[in-house]
């Protein structure tokens, strides 16, 4: 019984208020509430996953794949590359004439040396006969260029596939 802190004429109303019956929700109310409690229904807790920032990916019941850690060297390298690219960009934008002049001077002065070095490197990799063939500019040379390009792309694709298979087996 609560403290009597009202006028006498309110007493019958207070008594009636105290006699007001409790009303019941419909049957199954508790079950409906329980079905929405995260702790008891982990699937409910997982439902609004769209809002979570760091999701762990499940793969066929295997252990979750951890987020790859970004190393300090990687960060520093990316930053350095970014700075270099911005610098070169700025230089090219602002001093394109100077760059052209330097490159032209270098090319004219060392043209013979560059050509000789390229030929040496080419001969080492492809063989002197192939280089001679390419320098001839014949139709066969064009075919050879195409074969080299297809070979390079095919090799790259092969390496990627092999790496992917190896990763899957390791998992």
């Amino acid at each position, binding site marked *: 019984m609560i403290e009597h802190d009202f006028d006498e004429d309110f007493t019958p109303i207070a008594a009636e208020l105290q006699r007001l019956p409790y009303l019941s929700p419909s049957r199954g*109310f508790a079950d409906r*509430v329980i079905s929405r409690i995260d*702790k008891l229904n982990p699937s409910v807790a997982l439902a609004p996953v769209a809002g979570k920032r760091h999701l762990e990916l499940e793969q066929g019941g295997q252990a979750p794949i951890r987020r790859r850690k970004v190393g300090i060297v990687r960060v520093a390298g990316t930053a350095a590359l970014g700075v270099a690219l911005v610098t070169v960009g700025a230089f090219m934008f602002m001093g394109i004439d100077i760059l052209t002049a330097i490159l032209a001077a270098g090319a004219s002065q060392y043209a013979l040396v560059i050509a000789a070095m390229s030929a040496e490197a080419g001969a080492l990799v492809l063989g002197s006969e192939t280089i001679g063939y390419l320098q001839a500019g014949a139709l066969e040379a064009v075919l050879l260029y195409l074969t080299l390009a297809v070979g390079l792309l095919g090799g790259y694709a092969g390496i990627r596939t092999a790496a992917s298979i190896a990763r899957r087996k390791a998992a």
Partner: protein
Amino acid sequence: MPPKSYTDISDQQVVVFAQEGREDAYRELIRRYERPVYSLIYRMVRDNETSEDLAQETFIKVLNNIDRYRPEFKFSSWLFKIANNITIDHLRRRQLDTISIEGAPSAVTGESMRATAIAVASGGESPLEELESRELGASIEEAIAKLRPEYRACIILRHVEDYSYDEIAEIVKLPLGTVKTYIHRARQELREHLEDLK
């Protein structure tokens, strides 16, 4: 060690078991408070379906945050506080007006009015006493329905749930003085409404 029965266990202890993830503890908290919470909400919104939705929302919110419960407060106060907030928010959104004891505002047919009207339970009296009790009970319900929602919450918490002024102030998040004023005015208005009905 979980108990065989929760009957003699305090709310705080049941909450501890619920915090450990025991479903029977959650069910016990719902069993203890589904009727008081539903009744409070119903007397504020006067619509069965809406009351059920709001009561469900209240329990889901409270039980999903059971780990945040602070045992220095009464569990029931926390529960009523959430119920009151959810209901007041709903009323503000819908701007529901006070309505008649005959049924919810949405009730337009006789059947829907009967379905949404308040059913006053019998207290084992004689048919005449029961009729009088039903009439008086219905009059009180009607008078409560005419109060402002804030007054309704305060007067129900004070006279139906037996809360102190301090606890009501905590539940409805209003200054103590405002709560006292609301209850005083609610009593005055109830008296006037019931005089009119005589």
